[in-house]
């Protein structure tokens, strides 16, 4: 028996935190979570056309008594900025897991500006930011972030570093 992967343990942490709605704009680094969410009859997985929809989706779910997670990559963070006024103003929780691009062996220069800006922009918009660099830390960080978000009613982002995820390979 192999021990569960860190991705599987992250999904378990979301379930333990009673997250039942998952909005996402796909990223290869989130592939496991997206697949697990769709396969889970107790999780509603919602594909989005832009990441800011996920902020509003999570707010609506909270109004209705459900907990949501937003899965996106760092390039999507910039799309969310004004919509983050919703959880901040309404003192709602937000839990988002952000896979990082543009920082560790990045091949695509277009990913670098938003990747570099991501922690600063989120912080300036009122989101608490944590960063996971090591596989053994991720599930615990997600669990603690979910507790902070849903118990204290604040927006929290967990950045999953590109070193952790593995840089996207363009030329094989």
């Amino acid at each position, binding site marked *: 028996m192999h021990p569960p992967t860190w991705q599987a343990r992250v999904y378990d942490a979301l379930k333990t935190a009673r997250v039942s709605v998952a909005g996402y704009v796909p990223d290869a680094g989130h592939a496991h979570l997206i697949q697990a969410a769709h396969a889970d009859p107790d999780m509603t997985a919602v594909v989005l*056309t832009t990441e800011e929809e996920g902020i509003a989706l999570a707010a*609506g779910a909270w109004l*209705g008594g459900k907990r949501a997670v937003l899965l996106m990559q760092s390039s999507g963070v910039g799309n969310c900025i004004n919509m983050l006024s*919703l959880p901040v103003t309404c003192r709602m929780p937000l839990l988002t897991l952000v896979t990082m691009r543009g920082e560790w062996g990045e091949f695509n220069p277009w990913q670098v500006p938003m990747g570099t800006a991501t922690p600063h922009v989120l912080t300036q918009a009122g989101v608490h930011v944590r960063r996971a660099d090591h596989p053994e830390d991720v599930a615990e960080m997600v669990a603690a972030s979910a507790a902070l978000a849903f118990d204290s009613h604040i927006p929290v982002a967990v950045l999953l570093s590109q070193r952790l995820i593995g840089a996207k390979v363009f030329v094989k």
Partner: protein
Amino acid sequence: MTQPRTRNDGTLDRRNVAAVLLRDPGDLLVVTGLGAATYDVGVLGDREQNFYLWGAMGGTAMIGLGLALAQPSRRVLVITGDGEMLMGMGSLASIAAAGAPNLAIAVLDNARFGETGSQHSHTGLTTDLEAVAAACGWTATATARDMAAVEALRPRLRSEPLLAVIRISADAKPRFIPPRDGAYVTERFRRALGIIEN
């Protein structure tokens, strides 16, 4: 080259429209888009089951989706303007893909950005939001241009996953100020649903 169609043909009084849509609201859950839609709903009488937006432009429909998914046994009605809906147009695709039989959207369409000086919006130029919704996969869509049609929409908006465009006049109305403390409105809304902690 696409020519502007100047389809700014709305004549209905927006306050009369809102009064019909929300007559005998019962336990309907209502989410209102920023600007005049929020005022139109607020002036009818504040309700715990109303969630008023004063910002987050483009997010109203997706808040409606999250709420509808979380409360599948309740009806959710989003009431918003054309400018707000245009900013969140992609959410029409996301909502259709997600499927929420208990969610409906009423777009009060004056073909204007009314809060900012009544500039023409896309719905007065080239864009037909009902057709956009249909192309995104909404199976129930409608456009109303008279009050008889609005009356006919009222029960449909409470029973179908319907997107309805309602052509209203661009005449400005007196501003009405419903609660704008988002944390207060949020907590009140959740308590009205019996959610103490989750």
